[in-house]
Structure formats: C-alpha cells, structure tokens
C-alpha cells in the first residue's frame, strides 16, 4: 500500500471531502497551499489572526448551511477563542433545543517534542473533553487521521481534530480508495494477555515499542488506541482490562483531571472490570509543569517507552506505589 505522512493524510482527507461537497470551506491564518491552489482563495481563506472571531464565524456559517473547517493550527491559538468554543459552539445545538445543526470541524495540533516550549507544546484536550456538546479525536497514524477527519467533516456537530505535532512527518499506509473511520471506536493496535495499555497519539508508538521489548521477556501487552476522545470507546477498554486484569494509561498530557484519569475511572468504576483487576491502575503521563524548552528538560517532562515499561512492570508486580506523574 502507498504511504503518506500524517500531515499529507490530513490534507488529502480535506481535499477529498471538499471535492464532493461545495458547502465545505476552510479558514486558517496560514492556509495550506495545495488546497488554495485547487479550491481557490474563497473556499480556502487566509484570515486575519483573529481566532475568537473566526471560531464564531464558523458557527454562524454552519448554522446558515455551510460546513466550515476552522484550522486553529496550534491548539495554543484556540485559547483566545474559548468563549466561542465553550459558551457557543459546545452549547448552541442543545441550548436552542436542537433547532439547527452546526457541522464544524476545528483542527488543532497538540503535543511536544518540537522544542517550542511552554506555549506551543500543550496537550489540553481534557479541557475540551470536560465540555458537553463537542466531539473530538486524536489519532496516532496517517490512516486513522484521514478516516476520522472524513467522518468528522460529514458529522453534523462541532468536532475537534487534535493532531499530534510529533507525528506530522511520520509515514504510514493509507489506501487510495475512499474509507472512513467511525467516531467512538477504539483500535486494538496490538493483542496481548498480561497487561492492557491505553495510549494516544505519539505514545501509541512508544507503547508498541515497549510491548515489543517486553515480549522478549515473555510479557504480553495489549495496546489500545481509543483514537476518539469523545465519545470514548469505554467498552473496548473495559473488555481488554477484564481480560488482562491490569491497566496502564499513557498520555502526553499531565495526569490531573486528564484523559488518563478518565480512562482509569471508566475502567475501575465498572464492577465487573474492577473485580477482575489484579493491580491498581498505573498512569504514565507528563510531569505537572509547563513544558520547558531545553532538550534535557523537555525530554524529562514527557513520558516515553522507558517510563511505559516501568509502568507495566509496576502493574505486573501489583505495585501499590505511584511513580512519577
């Protein structure tokens, strides 16, 4: 199968959908040139740096029959639009009693590894998960990104596509033919029997590397990539934990009230799953500091395959202590 980078897969998903639906248009402060070339500067708009306005303009255009895509680029830039995200986009369908649909795709890059320091290396998706009314995903492969983006563009609700900074240039197989991936369906990236590791984005690859390494010692690790953050595929996570009895959650964000906390909660609050657990849940997350610039500092703050392996060993030993995070 042909290979595309993660970034290319994203562009291809948008272009394919724009070709079939003239109601889709794209706004970004820094537009993607191949899209401008193909669709013109009216459908792929270069905007002022005015995310608060543009995030709201997307809502009004969606309520008027269009299907806007608003590219925040770095998630950092969405924060100036928080009123429009939190008070308007997330609530407008419900608050007005479902009068209109608001099909909007917001795109945002997240995560570290780019040496861009505190403001441009963030993983704040749990802030958005906490809102009722938005759907969102964070894929780990070009294949998943393309399939989820196409679904999101066709969805009649505001959806946020979080996309991993670390993965933009990584390559993976993407078929030429049309396909979509439904929201809310996890992918089991590796089957295993001893430990379940739930990971997202770049840490899926780190978890797979850890699993490969541990296999040499006879430890069988199951790697689950939820892909979609909201709605979360709770059943796939619980089924895996019921099978293995052990759960490690790996996230590039900090642990506090985060994605990892949510996964731990949905697994352990289910009596059947909890009854089969042989060890406490172990979270492998970023340390609770803003992301520092210098490479030794940044690399220390983010989790990696070594910390994932340590976490797996902890749950295998039934360790009661919590390390790191």
């Amino acid at each position, binding site marked *: 199968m042909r290979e595309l980078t993660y970034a290319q897969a994203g562009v291809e998903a948008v272009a394919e959908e724009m070709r079939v639906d003239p109601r889709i248009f794209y706004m970004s402060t820094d537009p993607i040139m191949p899209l401008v070339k193909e669709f013109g500067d009216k459908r792929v708009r270069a905007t002022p740096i005015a995310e608060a*306005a543009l995030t709201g303009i997307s809502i009004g255009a969606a309520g008027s029959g269009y299907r806007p895509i608003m590219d925040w680029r770095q998630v950092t830039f969405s924060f100036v639009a928080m009123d429009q995200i939190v008070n308007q986009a997330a609530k407008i369908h419900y608050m007005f009693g479902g009068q209109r649909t608001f099909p909007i795709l917001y795109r945002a890059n997240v995560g570290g590894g780019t040496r861009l320091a505190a403001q441009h290396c963030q993983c704040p998706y749990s802030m958005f998960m906490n809102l009722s009314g938005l759907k969102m995903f964070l894929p780990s492969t070009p294949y998943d990104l393309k399939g989820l983006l196409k679904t999101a563009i066709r969805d009649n609700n505001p959806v946020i596509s979080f996309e991993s900074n670390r993965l933009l240039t990584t390559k993976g197989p993407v078929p030429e033919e049309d396909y979509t991936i439904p929201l809310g369906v996890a992918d089991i990236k590796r089957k295993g029997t001893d430990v379940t590791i739930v990971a997202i984005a770049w840490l899926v690859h780190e978890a797979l590397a850890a699993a490969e390494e541990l296999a040499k010692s006879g430890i069988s690790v199951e790697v689950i990539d939820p892909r979609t953050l909201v709605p979360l595929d709770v059943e796939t996570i619980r089924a895996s934990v019921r099978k293995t009895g052990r759960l490690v959650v790996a996230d590039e964000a900090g642990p506090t009230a985060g994605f990892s906390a949510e996964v731990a909660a949905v697994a352990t609050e289910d009596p059947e799953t909890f009854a089969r657990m042989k060890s406490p849940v172990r979270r492998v997350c970023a340390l609770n500091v803003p992301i520092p610039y210098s490479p030794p500092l940044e690399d220390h703050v983010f989790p990696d395959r070594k910390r994932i392996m340590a976490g797996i060993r902890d749950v295998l030993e039934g360790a009661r202590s919590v390390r790191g995070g």
Partner: protein
Amino acid sequence: MNLSPDKQREMLRQMLTIRHFEERASADYHAGKIYGVVHCYIGEEAVAVGVCSALETGDQIISTHRGHGHCIAKGADLNRMMAELYGRQGGYCKGKGGSMHIADFGIGMLGANGIVAGGISIVTGAGLAAQMDGNGRVAVSFFGDGASNAGPFHECLNIAATWKLPMIYVCENNMYAAQTAAAATHAMPDVAGRAAGYGIPGVVVDGNDIFGVYQAAARAVARARAGEGPTLIECKTYRWRAHTERAGQPDFRTAEEIEAWKTKDPIARLSGQLIAQGSMSEADLKALDQEALASIAASVAFAEASPFPTPEQALEDMYAA
C-alpha cells in the same frame, strides 16, 4: 422616507407588543413564574423595530442577553417565546434556554446570547454565508455599548470590512454596561467613531426616533445588498429598568436621569407623530394597545397550558443526527 401608514402602524404595534411582553415578563418573574433572570428592553424598542423594519424575512439577526425586543421585531411567535420563559416544552428551545437563549432560526433570529459580544462573530458568519450564497441577504448584529469594548467586536469589524460582508452592526448604546457608565469605560463618546478605523461608515442616530433608526438601517441594508460592505450604526438610547430584574442589584443611575429619559419615550413619540399626521386617532391607538395586550395574555395562556419538560428530556438534543 417611503413608509406607508400601514407600515408605520405596524411598527407601533410591534413596539407596543415588546413593551407589554416585557411588562408581563417582569411581573411574572417577580411572581416566581419565570426563573433565573430577565433583562428588560423597555425604552429601547425603537431600535429593534426600526432596524428590523428595514429587513426582509430571509435576512438574519443576532441578539444579546436583552433579546425579547429583537425576537418580536423579527417576527417571533409570542406564544413560544413566553412558553420558553415559563420553562415549558412548548417554548422555542423546549425549556432548555430561557429568556437569555431564545432563537428562531426559521425566521433568521440566530439567538439571544448570555455573553456580551458573544453573538457578534456568529452573525458575521451568517453574513459570510450570505455573501457566499450571493443571494443579496444581509445579517445584523445587535449589541450594546459594553460589547463594543470587547475584542470580537473589533475582530469582526475588521474582517467584515476587509471581506466586504453584507453586515450591519447595530450598537444599542444605552449608556450603561450592566451597572457601569459608558462614560467611565469608553475613551471616545461615540462608538460609531470607531468605524473610521475600519474604513466603513459609522452613523450616530437618536435611538428613540424610530424613523431615524429606520432610515439609517435602510441605507446600511442597501449598501450591504449592493456588495459595498458593512455599516456601524450607533443608536443612542436608554433602558428604563435596571440591568436585570433580579432583586438587590445595584443601580447607580439617578432618578432624575431615568425620569428625563422616560419623557423621551419612543412609543409616545411615534404614536404622537401618527396622531399628529392624521394616520391614526386616539381610539385607533387604544385599539392597537389592546390588541398588543391581548396577544400577550394569549401567550401567557399558551405558556401555562404547555407542560413542563420531563426530567429525561434533559438528555435530548445533545448531538445532531
């Protein structure tokens, strides 16, 4: 000004309807039949009616937390409005929104909004959609003097001016942002003066003169429909009641100031003009007033007859299919 006597009477009827709707909403709020908060528009009716009288059905507007007047002026159904205030199933939002969140997308009313300046960008998106549709429709943002100091106002005026969007930005300057006087928070006395910074027309009108409001709006609408871009209209007006109907909130305005503005009542002004020019008699005015009152009484009856939502309905309308 080409306003037929019928149209002028219709403008007066709408203003009377807004006033009576709000008097009833205020009374029923204080009687405990309406919950949360109610923001009254009394005294500012000429702005909503004057602007919306210059619009067509397909044009879109967005409102503020003080939204009843805009709803009524755009043609919203009084029954569904009152039922929403009463928190009933028959309300516009099935009881999920209340006074601050009434919308009727079917008539181009994109919603009241609880966030100051929250609606400006949304309706600018409707203006962008109208431009892309090329259908000659326009979009109107109603907002207050307080919102004119918030970032989205400036971002949107720049975008609308740059892209020549068919927008009319209507600042209802009632001289107070909640309890704070505009004089204490604005560097310049006229919000309309800011239009110069975006290269678009900025117009100050007496917001209690409905014909002046209408004329300014009609010019702005014509300009927008012609593809020439947005206009900023500032309507100087005054709200008679406190910022909200909630008890115990401070109101630093003097009784003299409030009474002085009541002598500039936009409804008395219009009805006086219509009687003076022979368009209607005192008896006609009384009949129109009774008609408005009856429509409000009917809306209350509708609201009271509408059932409350069932608790389970709290989980409906989360996502669109």
